[in-house]
């Protein structure tokens, strides 16, 4: 497997513009002769599908919900970054690029990240033109807030529903193209395989989730816009149905999977409360603008708090440990997510947790309410406070929120080159589904930016280069033998699941798998634990294939079968994640190997040996995957120890 990043030569700031000129074009009247299959309709998928259809391509979209509008991009709360410098506070494309590379602990690809920062400004323009009701100042100009890992205010937001509003913007653009007949939108479909002809991606095997029928679609290129794989942990902030299957099946067909161990644990989520729990709820990072994170300073005080002898409001200022403010005076509560999460874990490991059966720290708005008044806090975070109260039955205006880190976003994903093409020609990956822009840690408000950058402003340019070479005459139809064979493979796989007829439910296995991965490949990792995890995953997977209970049949509405194929894929992904964490003998960003940390528990990178992307090649079921390296070359940025002190 050869990894060619195809990063164009030349100065950083000129690469993209020059590259756009160098790319081959498809004549406007010929574009309708190409058919593009877009998997997923979140920010990346909807923006790509709409933009490609506007250009004239024929597009078919697939999503598993009942409408494209429901993709999980919709749940992003806090905002979207852009280097507009509307605040006149020293922001620039270079600064956004620099913050993102640094925030990712120098494990992202320079050229991709720079391009992301460059097009960020166009995204805001596009979204406003679509009618996205961003927050505004009284003069009518756009408002900004601050997010972690940055010392400028560059985050645009629409109350606490920025993801929803941006998605509805992209969904609107998509609807327009559906109405015009340029996009065929197929809901309640899940992709079970990618069909390759002569090594190129030429189609999809698709499950109709309502009828259970297997469907075939042929096209000239396939875009995976399928989001992340955080649900491998069972509990995460992802939607219940977010899954890795489409991306994983592409991996099984030859697309390299990069940096799977880079998983972002979001610092501010509502803590776990019971075994029946189905998901975790995130509270926006924007809350850290005004909320102060603390725990009691002593174990003794923490114990009193947990046993109910004292209330949080009665704990004196000197007995409160504002650990982020004390340890990181420059960034304070706005340190990047990985740093905030790790510190929360550390104080809880030290016995300072604020809840009796579990782990949590306080996020306290008392001082902000005193300073600004309840009204201001309500206008900024009202809907988030409401949500918190609905779930926990506690009023965050009168007592501090209790929060703890939870699995949130996956920086790893399908390996892509500068064109966003995977190692399978004609197969692209956009948004969270790819690995390229965030390195080992993503900064807040950058996921929305990347999804839309890829869909609106990158793929419309790069895809033409591939299609121009592919040509218009080289068509494949769904009666091609490759479709027969691939569909047969999928049917055999599902049949295997259905024929086990064991005793344990799919969820039961998923929960156990999630615990293994959370315990050994979660917020901190070590060699011994990771090695143990591989053994435990193998054992559980063996048991899964012997004892899983999947009722019903293939050709019907079958929710349990749907869960089963996803969990079968999580077993393989989980193992590759663990292997990836094991080979990376350094700490970087979200990946903290306990053996490699500084005296004050910060991540200790090893740039001499590990400044590379680990891209894994699938070698077959039960076979260990093989790692390939893409060396990261930093031409423009000097690698430094990340400091937020």
């Amino acid at each position, binding site marked *: 497997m050869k990894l060619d990043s195809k990063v164009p030569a030349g100065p950083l700031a000129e690469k993209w513009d020059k590259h756009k000129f160098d790319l081959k074009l498809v004549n406007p009247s010929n574009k309708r002769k190409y058919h593009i299959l877009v998997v997923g309709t979140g920010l990346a998928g909807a*923006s790509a599908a*709409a*933009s490609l259809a*506007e250009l004239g391509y024929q597009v078919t979209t697939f999503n598993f*919900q*009942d*409408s494209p*509008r*429901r*993709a*999980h991009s*919709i*749940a992003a709360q806090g905002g979207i970054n852009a280097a*507009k410098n509307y605040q006149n506070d020293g922001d620039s494309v270079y600064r956004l690029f620099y913050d993102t590379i640094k925030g990712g602990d120098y494990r992202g690809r320079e050229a991709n990240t720079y391009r992301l920062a460059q097009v960020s400004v*166009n995204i805001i*323009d*596009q979204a*406003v*033109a*679509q*009618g996205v*009701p*961003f927050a*505004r100042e009284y*003069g*009518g*100009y*756009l408002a900004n807030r601050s997010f972690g890992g940055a010392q400028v205010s560059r985050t645009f937001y*629409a*109350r606490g*529903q920025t*993801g*929803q*509003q941006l998605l509805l913007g992209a*969904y*609107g*653009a998509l*609807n*327009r193209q*559906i109405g015009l007949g340029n996009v065929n939108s197929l*809901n309640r479909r899940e992709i079970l395989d990618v069909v390759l002809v002569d090594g190129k991606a030429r189609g999809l095997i698709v499950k109709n989730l*309502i009828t259970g029928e297997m469907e075939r679609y042929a096209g000239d290129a396939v875009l995976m816009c399928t989001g992340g794989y955080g649900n491998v942990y069972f509990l995460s902030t992802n*939607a*219940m*149905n977010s899954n890795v299957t489409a991306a994983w099946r592409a991996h099984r067909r030859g697309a390299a999977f990069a940096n799977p161990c880079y998983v972002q644990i979001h610092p501010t989520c509502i803590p776990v*409360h*019971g075994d*029946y729990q*189905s998901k975790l709820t*995130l509270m926006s990072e924007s809350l850290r603008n005004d909320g102060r994170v603390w725990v009691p300073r002593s174990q003794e005080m923490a114990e009193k708090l947990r046993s109910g002898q004292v209330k949080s409001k009665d704990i004196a200022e000197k007995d409160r440990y504002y650990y982020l403010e004390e340890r990181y005076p420059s960034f304070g509560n706005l340190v990047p997510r990985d740093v905030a999460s790790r510190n929360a874990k550390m104080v809880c490991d030290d016995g300072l947790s604020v809840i009796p059966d579990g782990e949590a720290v306080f996020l306290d708005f008392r001082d902000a309410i005193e300073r600004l008044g309840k009204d201001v806090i309500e206008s900024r975070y009202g809907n988030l406070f409401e*949500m918190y109260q*609905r*779930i926990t*039955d*506690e009023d965050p205006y009168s007592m501090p929120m209790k929060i703890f880190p939870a699995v949130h976003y996956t920086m790893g994903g399908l390996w892509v080159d500068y064109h966003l093409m995977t190692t399978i020609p004609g197969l692209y990956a956009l948004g969270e589904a790819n690995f390229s822009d965030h390195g080992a840690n993503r900064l807040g408000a950058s996921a929305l930016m990347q999804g839309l950058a890829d869909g*609106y402003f990158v793929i419309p340019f790069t895809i033409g280069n591939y299609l121009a070479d592919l040509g218009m005459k080289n068509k494949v139809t769904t009666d091609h033998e490759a479709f027969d064979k691939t569909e047969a493979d999928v049917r055999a796989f599902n049949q295997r699941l259905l024929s086990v007829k064991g005793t344990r*439910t799919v969820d*039961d296995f998923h929960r156990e798998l999630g615990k293994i991965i959370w315990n050994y490949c979660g917020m901190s990792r070590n060699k011994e634990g990771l090695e143990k995890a591989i053994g435990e995953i193998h054992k559980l997977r063996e048991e899964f294939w012997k004892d899983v209970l999947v009722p*019903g049949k293939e050709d019907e509405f079958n929710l*349990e079968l749907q869960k089963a194929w996803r969990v079968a894929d999580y077993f393989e992904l989980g193992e590759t994640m663990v292997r990836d964490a094991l080979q990376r003998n350094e700490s970087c960003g979200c990946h903290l190997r306990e053996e490699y940390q500084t005296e004050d528990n910060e991540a200790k990178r090893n740039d001499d040996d590990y400044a590379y992307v680990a891209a894994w090649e699938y070698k077959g079921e039960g076979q260990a995957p093989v790692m390939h390296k893409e060396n990261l070359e930093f031409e423009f940025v000097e690698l430094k120890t990340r400091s937020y002190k």
Partner: protein
Amino acid sequence: MAGKNLNLTLKIWRQNGPAAKGQMKEYKVSDISTEMSFLEMLDVLNERLVREGEDPIAFDHDCREGICGMCSLMINGLAHGPSRRTTTCQLHMRSFNDGDTIYIEPWRAKAFPVIKDLVVDRSAFDHIMHAGGYISVNTGNAQDANEMPISTQVADHAMDAAECIGCGACVASCKNASAMLFVSAKVAHLGHLPQGQPERMLRVQRMVRTMDEAGFGNCTNTGACEVQCPKGISIKNIAKMNADYLRASLISEVKG
């Protein structure tokens, strides 16, 4: 936060397919923690049904944080259950008492046919959006975002309407199964904004026409939609849409 445990009787609508005849079926559940969400309670029941060899209950859900609009359910005759401004996924069992009987049914509307059990087909909503729920601007056409100042008041009004999650509770709650609240939320969101002006008249005509074709009922200003809306979308939007629609009919811009 320590919760109690509840024993409940559930009466749930079971229907094997769009053409099949449905019926209410009774299930007993015990030791349900009041800290559980409503859907987690159904998860627990489903896991038991799978173990017992019975077909699990089909219901739509995804984000489980009240924003995707995928979850539905009429709970004791109320869309999304007894808590105001709450989706079913955010409803917690602390809203119920030990020994309660809870009736769980799908959205009931001609334009939302049942697919299976509690899952209904809401594609009519998408069709209405295809007809005009957007501003026609190609990618790359936009001017600088700050070229056009928009007062906070206008932006806030637009945002109030834009918060709609498209769940369909308004239709399910309406005695006429009218989709006016849903449609008017989009019409008002875009109609408030300067960017939305060029297509304002065309948009309302097209969307209303598609709404009518989908088989939704008329609005008789009962206001149940507003009460049951998990996002608190105001019925004032319907008045605004009616005004726009009247204006558009006088100008009669719509073609084809």
